[in-house]
């Protein structure tokens, strides 16, 4: 499912070619009004050809046959584009489905792991059933862990090989069907009937994506239908106009029905009409290529409109954890002494912060890990009461903790709490870092500065977003001071400090009330209300079932930075539609210059002055325009599937460059294309 999959992979092209033919069925054509007109035109000219063969044609039978043939090709090319896009999408769905197998399930009557399970088939499971899942088992259905804890390999869904922990209660209680339990066991309650499981629904959505038009697609279709009606009337009325002109000028023939059908097909927006559904399907495919499953095309489209991104600080803007970056000793204490004490206090601390202190001390003063056996060591774990951790070693009582905790500890022992240390700690906090105090025998040694590490390149990313008109808001549980400093460093536009789920929801509502579209990511159950409220809500696949249900997209990689990519894919889809519509409509100018002189030259030879391309004959002019009109669909299939290149620019810049490429280009390209085809037809002696 990577994006690099070749557009013209023979494994996809072959079935698409066949599908292009089967899609000629009227009930399929009926769904696309623009191409339906071409389809009817193809039948109509075929009938005219039969009539001409019987000797009653209004144009040479050879010309009618050629035009009719190319009209059929036009329909086939559009069918092929759609089939190719669907084929790619189906291939992706199939690779997802391969993870879905019928497996054995151990059904329990009560959530008691020691009860003897009834062995059954995963297909027979129903919502509410209780399951025992042992090490080595494939999880038979989506469920929620009730008892136990297990490590689970979710690589089948996420592609991530590192196992994850699933346990009862909290945010990590959801297990997904198709994943494998690696160690231990859990008792889980089934949360979805077969065929309705999360993966099933995702696959169904991907396969069914083409069936539902998005709101913008509907609006665009209305415009295309209107244009088609206009051109239908323009061409139909040309017949009486032509008859009147022939009578008035007293020379020439009224325009033939074949030429009118050719003109009609050239004028109606077949380029965008033929590629529209392919663009939509390809948009979903690109999401899938980025390992994001969107519940609907509507969600993909909304992603392009997002005004505000709510980004969790941890994991998105900063690396997961804070790290020690500096030792700031108190007056009269050497930095090395502080580092030594800090390292000692952190030896048993397995948190990433603790480990980073050990590492920093090692880097700064080459303090190696000690041979603890030589010492009289007892580690003091962190408790909610003392809010400190530390170590008692050889009579030294080393403690580290938050400023308040150490202050209380020192003051309780009747010692001074130096004002200079308080000041140092404040400065650290003002920088957006977290001060951690170290004390030895109730004497404060100094401050460890723990800092959030902002991810590399993220600032540039936010600058791009700003240029696109998207505002970024950082969500963090930190205090406002810390949050402000990190926000400034990362270059986000705004932040929400000390964020609670309620505050997050309120922020989304308030932003939406200003008329803005909000996108966010979330994984916890407490994120669910905010996810449900947000316009584009990306749930992490590692998140809880509630979060996934509330979101309208799931990121299989569980990478919060993905949101930015999602926005780009949404925009790309809309841009591709707009670009091809503009191109399609601009094309008509050249086609008029080809067909009008050709159609009426027998009545008014003076109109040949409009034959600016110098096309060989009326027949070659009309045929060249029709062939160009068909071939341009094929030429643009890669663009439709890949999407117009997106660059982070302001709307005005984007418009200028796209108008130039697709507007002006659309005006000029057909002049060249039609001329080339005409030269080729003439050289080959086909007309």
């Amino acid at each position, binding site marked *: 499912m990577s994006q690099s999959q070749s557009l013209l992979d023979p494994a996809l092209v072959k079935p698409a070619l066949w599908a292009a033919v089967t899609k000629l069925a009227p009930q399929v054509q009926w769904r696309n009004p623009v191409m339906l007109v071409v389809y009817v035109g193809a039948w109509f000219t075929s009938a005219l050809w039969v009539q001409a063969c019987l000797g009653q044609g209004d144009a040479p039978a050879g010309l009618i046959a050629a035009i009719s043939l190319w009209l059929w090709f036009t329909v086939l090319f559009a069918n092929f584009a759609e089939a190719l896009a669907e084929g790619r999408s189906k291939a992706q769905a199939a690779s997802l489905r391969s993870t879905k197998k019928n497996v054995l399930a151990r059904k329990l009557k009560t959530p008691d792991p020691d009860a003897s399970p009834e062995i059954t088939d995963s297909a027979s499971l129903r919502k509410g059933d209780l399951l025992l899942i042992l090490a080595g088992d494939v999880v038979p259905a989506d469920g929620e862990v009730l008892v136990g804890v297990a490590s689970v390999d979710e690589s089948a869904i996420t592609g991530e090989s590192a196992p994850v922990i699933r346990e009862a209660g909290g945010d990590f209680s959801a297990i997904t069907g198709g994943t494998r339990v690696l160690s231990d066991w859990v008792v889980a309650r089934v949360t979805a009937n077969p065929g309705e499981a999360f993966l099933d629904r995702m696959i169904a959505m991907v396969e069914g994506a083409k069936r539902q038009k998005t*709101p*913008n697609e509907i*609006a*665009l279709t*209305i*415009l295309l*239908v*209107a244009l088609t*009606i*206009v*051109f239908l*009337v*323009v*061409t139909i*009325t*040309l*017949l*009486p*106009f032509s008859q*009147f*002109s022939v009578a*008035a000028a007293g020379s020439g023939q009224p325009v033939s029905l074949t030429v009118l059908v050719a003109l009609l097909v050239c*004028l109606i927006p077949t380029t965008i009409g033929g590629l529209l559904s392919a663009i939509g399907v390809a948009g979903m495919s690109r999401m899938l290529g980025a390992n994001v499953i969107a519940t609907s095309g509507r969600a993909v*489209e909304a992603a*392009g409109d997002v*005004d505000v991104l709510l980004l969790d600080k941890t994991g998105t803007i900063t690396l997961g954890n804070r790290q020690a970056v500096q030792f700031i000793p108190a007056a009269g204490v050497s930095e090395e002494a502080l580092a030594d004490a800090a390292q000692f206090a952190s030896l048993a601390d397995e948190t990433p912060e603790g480990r980073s202190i050990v590492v920093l001390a090692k880097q700064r003063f080459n303090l190696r890990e000690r041979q603890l056996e030589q010492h009289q060591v007892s580690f003091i774990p962190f408790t909610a009461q003392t809010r400190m951790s530390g170590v008692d070693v050889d009579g030294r009582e080393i403690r580290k903790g938050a400023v308040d905790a150490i202050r209380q500890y020192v003051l309780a022992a009747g010692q001074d709490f130096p004002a200079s240390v308080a000041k140092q700690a404040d400065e650290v906090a003002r920088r957006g870092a977290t001060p951690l105090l170290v004390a030895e025998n109730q004497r404060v040694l100094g401050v460890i500065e723990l800092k959030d590490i902002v991810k590399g390149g993220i600032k540039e990313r936010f600058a791009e977003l*700003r*240029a*696109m*008109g*998207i505002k970024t808001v950082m969500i963090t549980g930190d205090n406002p001071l810390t949050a402000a400093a990190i926000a400034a460093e990362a270059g986000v536009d705004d932040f929400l400090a000390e964020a609670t789920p309620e505050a997050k929801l309120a922020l989304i509502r308030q932003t939406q009330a*200003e*008329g*803005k579209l909000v996108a966010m990511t979330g994984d916890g159950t407490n994120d669910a209300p905010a996810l449900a409220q947000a316009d584009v809500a990306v749930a992490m696949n590692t998140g809880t079932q509630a979060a996934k249900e509330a979101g309208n997209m799931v990121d299989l990689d569980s990478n919060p930075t993905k949101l930015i990519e999602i926005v780009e894919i949404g*925009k790309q889809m*809309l*841009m591709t539609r*707009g*670009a091809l519509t*503009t191109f399609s*409509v*601009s094309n008509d*100018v050249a086609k*008029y210059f080809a067909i*009008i002189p050709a159609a*009426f030259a027998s009545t*008014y030879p*003076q*109109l040949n*002055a*409009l034959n600016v391309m110098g096309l060989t004959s009326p027949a070659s002019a009309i045929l060249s325009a029709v062939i160009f009109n068909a071939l341009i669909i094929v030429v643009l299939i890669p663009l439709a599937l890949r999407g117009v290149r*997106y660059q982070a620019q302001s*709307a*005005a810049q*984007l*418009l*200028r460059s*796209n*108008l130039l490429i*697709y507007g002006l280009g659309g005006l000029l390209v057909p002049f060249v294309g039609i001329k080339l085809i005409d030269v080729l037809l003439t050289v080959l002696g086909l007309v």
Partner: protein
Amino acid sequence: MTANAFFQLALYLGVLILLAMPLSRWLTRVMAGDIPRVLRPVQWLEHGLYRLAGVEPKQEQHWLAYALGLLLFNVLGFLALYALQRAQGVLPLNPEAFGAVSSDSALNTAISFVTNTNWQGYGGESTMSYLTQMLGLAVQNFVSAATGLAVAVALIRGFARKSVRTIGNFWVDLTRGTLYILLPLSLLLALALVSQGVIQNFKPYQSARLLEAQSYSQPKLDAAGQAMKDAQGHAVLESVSTQTQTLPMGPVASQEAIKLLGTNGGGFFNANSAHPYENPTPLSNFLQMLAIFLIPAALVLSFGQQVGDRRQGWTILAAMTLLFVLAYGVLVAAEQAGNPRWATLGLDQLVNLEGKEARFGIVASSLFATITTAASCGAVNAMHASFTPLGGMIPTLLMQLGEVVFGGVGAGLYGMLVFALLAVFIAGLMVGRTPEYLGKKIESFEMKMTALVILVTPLLVLLGTALAVSLASGRAGIFNPGAHGFSEVLYALSSAANNNGSAFAGLSANTPFYNFLLGAAMWLGRFAVIVPVLAMAGALAAKPRLPVNAGTLPTHGPLFVGLLVGAVLLVGLLNYIPALALGPIVEHLQLWQVAH
């Protein structure tokens, strides 16, 4: 373009903008119900009218109620005007004792004036009594313009408001537009015109003795009033000689002012603004041209003020002006290039003076023709059929663009805003967002209404023209054979469906066939556009107004002007190029081919 042509254009546009700016502020205030002190004394009349009609002015309407009120008012106006024409024979103020207008002509004229088209199948001085002119036609001149203004203001409210169900009160908008904008301006203009010699009286027609006998030829009419034709299809002419001339009289100045200010264009006399009693001097001509664009231009600027971003108004005005200048440039160049065939007759001056008043000349006639067809006015000071083929194509095309180059009072703005929505929809997609204009998302309902508005007039024009050239009764009215005859029919349908009302001449249109066909085109061209526009206003008003950011497509500035001009031209040309190719374009090629 000659220096004279450039100078007249620059002077015209300069004065127009200078006048439009203060008027735009006046419009903004008045339509919001903030009546300037000068007109406060008239407010008793406004309130009295509401009491009389049982209108609660503070009660706003849903778009459907607004549209129903508008339709009801216009249907009643149509019935009243029809009845008045049919009954004028027995009513006072009829010194020439004209009888009832024929039923098909009365029907056509009633529709024509109600729809702000003012297509005239009749000749005023030989058909209408003074009472019909004043009580019927002039009244519709006021209220049809006020109707257009009301629709535009309702649409502006749709953009300016957020998340509300109402778009104003039709009766209030209609009354305020008439009382505080059209009436005061008409009064001022009428006085100015009288100072130039435009007549205003109730006298019977005067007879003057000519110094020498005049003989002229005119088409011979058969018993049914149709032009008789010979075997080749040419009109049969008869020669007439006379020593006296009848000078028609009437209350002209009062009707002339609103004819132009309301972009109506229905002349008191058949010759319209080419008649010396309607438009006697170059200054009166200049004032008339100013009056045509004045309210449309001011309304565009007022639009910017009402939506809270003046740049939006200036952008639309710039797009309109650009299209206008382009059209004028081609027209005046074509007329000054003239007719190459005259060189073969030994003439050294090729400029085309045929069908033009000598007191206005080529430039002022070209400017007037561009203005009157750019706006949906339809008053003429020269015969458009006598222009060169390209010169005649420009007025045709200006109408076919949908009367959005300044356009009719109100109608020009709402038509142009629909094109803006179309441009934004396609271009907006190209910047990767669901398109929005002035903070309103353009979704399928807006697109449906936009599609309807853009579909209606081309369908009417093309299908109507096809019908006319296919049927014998349609072909019977065509005076000139060949491509020019086709242009005549195309012009008539373009004029009617786009509610312009000017005539190309050369088409005998006062026949039941054309009266009914053009009547239907005028009615649908007006109200089949207004209803979707009001529906859109309602839908827009109900939407929230989204804030603008760097990702929003900017709808002001040169880029958007170019985009809007491109959208208008592309839609217009794609619709009409084939038809124009068989009319004026081939005529032009034929003319110049022979000369080379």
